[in-house]
């Protein structure tokens, strides 16, 4: 699905990503975990074409998308759900969703009602709020709206940037359930999270990003028991799966 080799990117002279190589296979949930400032968002933005890559290769479904315009990348099948939702606050839920289908709209076959029904199946609450202004939704609902809006473009790969930010734990759980549902419906997900434990809990594989480099990767269950990951990102509570924890 997505294949990245030796990707470098940054802001001005600041090199943020240093030779990132990674891939996402069809039907997978892959997560990138890492601390603040590790380069997670930069990586997603570079894939989405919002930040220009300095060097390297990005392939989406076998076709190079490096230095392609963001709207072309969306049309090629890769949608981004940005951090902090960024819904159009003054538009209604329905209008927000329809805008998400813009690339579909340009194709003649676009049938907004059918697409909306599909989104409402996944997020019934959005149907209830259909004509409400997006700005009046709760944080969790806005996150669902942002995800629904991205899905309207019928992406092959959906990239989520910190969907848990600013949400109550119960809502986070809900959002992660929905991500699992998306995968079950055949979507491929690239998930960026600071909440490493939750992300690794639903992902198939993970990459650990540190100061712009991938320092570790593997099946999510392996990363969960990796001591470096535990120390850096998971806190102590998971060590030894409930057995006695070290007290030092």
């Amino acid at each position, binding site marked *: 699905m997505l294949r990245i*080799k030796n990707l470098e990117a940054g802001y001005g002279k600041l090199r943020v990503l240093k*030779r990132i190589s990674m891939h996402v296979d069809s039907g997978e949930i892959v997560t990138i975990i890492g601390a603040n400032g590790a380069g997670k968002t930069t990586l997603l933005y570079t894939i989405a074409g919002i930040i220009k890559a300095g060097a390297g290769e990005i392939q989406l479904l076998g076709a190079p998308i490096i230095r392609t315009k963001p709207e072309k990348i969306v049309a090629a099948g890769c949608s981004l759900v940005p951090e902090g939702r960024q819904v159009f606050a003054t538009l209604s839920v329905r209008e927000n969703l329809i805008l998400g289908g813009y690339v579909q709209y340009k194709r003649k076959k676009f049938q907004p009602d059918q697409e909306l029904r599909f989104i409402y199946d996944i997020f019934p609450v959005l149907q209830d709020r259909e004509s409400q202004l997006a700005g009046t939704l709760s944080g969790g609902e806005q996150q669902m709206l942002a995800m629904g809006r991205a899905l309207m473009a019928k992406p092959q790969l959906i990239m989520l940037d910190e969907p848990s930010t600013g949400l109550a734990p119960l809502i986070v759980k809900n959002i992660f359930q929905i991500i699992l549902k998306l995968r079950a419906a055949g979507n491929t997900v690239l998930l960026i999270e600071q909440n490493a434990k939750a992300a690794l809990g639903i992902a198939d594989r993970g990459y650990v990003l540190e100061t712009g*480099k991938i320092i570790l*990767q593997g099946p999510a269950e392996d990363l969960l028991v*990796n*001591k470096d990951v535990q120390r850096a990102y998971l806190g102590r509570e998971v060590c030894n799966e409930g057995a006695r924890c070290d007290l030092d």
Partner: protein
Amino acid sequence: MYWDKAKECMSREDLEQLQLERLQSTLYRVATHVPFYRKKFKESGINPDGFSALDEMRSLPFTTKDDLRDNYPYGLFAVPLRDVVRVHASSGTTGMATVVGYTKNDIKNWADMVARILTATGVGADDVVQIAFGYGLFTGGFGLHYGAERIGASVIPISSGNTKRQIQILQDFKTTTLVCTPSYALLLADTMMEMDININALSLKYGLFGGEPWSEEMRTEIKNKLGIIATDNYGLSEVMGPGVAGECRECNGLHINEDHFIVEVIDPQSLEPVAPGELGELVFTTITKEAFPVIRYRTRDLARLLAEPCSCGRTLRRMSRVIGRTDDMLIIKGVNVYPMQIESILFDIEGTEPHYQIIVEREGRMDKVTVLVEVVESIFFDQMKKQRQLMEHIKKRLATELGIGVDVKLVEEKTLERFEGKAVRVVDRRRL
């Protein structure tokens, strides 16, 4: 039959992507956590962050057994000891062991690799696996053990030795799969014949043999005598243990677990890669190991890579069986022995001369080692008792330090051949 079809039948392109990703982060981790590699990279001007293609492997420095010994015991570990859940060791040239460690994930991956090899032979959850490899610091026993458990087989951890008991259990426990060295398999077969046991009445179906080089003729003999499918497997503790590579039912080369190891074949003199398919020294880089990663480890094992795809469907490349060694290491009863080890023990013992010869023979099925030692003249004029004492003393020292029993013969001064150039200390009369 596959254990992990997605990995074992990966396309080359996907595999190379995976190898690059894993290699890049391995290089980062060893450069950050292992002072030895950090220093080595610096000396050879390697920027571990600057690595962008598998071809660039060639610029990386080699790691040798000496490096492992110099960093005895834990110097090359890439994680703190508290993350290590297992330690194994193997013999070294001067009697100092090389120590390797495993994290929880390493053990899991190891079991998976062995599971692939067992599955490729045909072993499954219904099988009863008798593991007659030594358990302990040697990786053989535990390596196969965890893999067999992973596939759900019933494991009999009998360990090596005690042939009569092995045979008893082989019969009574209805063992279907035998795991040991090929020479031990033949010894078992011959002993059973001597004991008039009807081998056809056994439940035995499969044999996974490794730990020492063996030939196609030997395979045929094992197959005929035991009536089983016999496959070869390869591994070394410095890289992982058994499970680095193993044969499928085609019995035509060993599939290397390339998603965990990058293999190269080099000319041991020029250190350059050999032409595809040529014989050379195997060099492995681990790309998933956490506790004990090695970069371009020179195995000293000679083999060739087979380029043609295998009809079993696995895309993991195959290596030929190991054909020899680039150094003078002997494999005796599956145990690695260096002549230097014997030499340094002899030097240590008073009354011996620094002239000796090691004779390796195959007596029946088993290896037999005789060490001829020159002793100072005075001993031969002394009483027999003193001679015998010295002999027993040497025997005991060799047995404790080598881990295998050897015969010792004392000879008079200047009776062993003297060499002008490189001394031929070892006479290997085994025909494998």
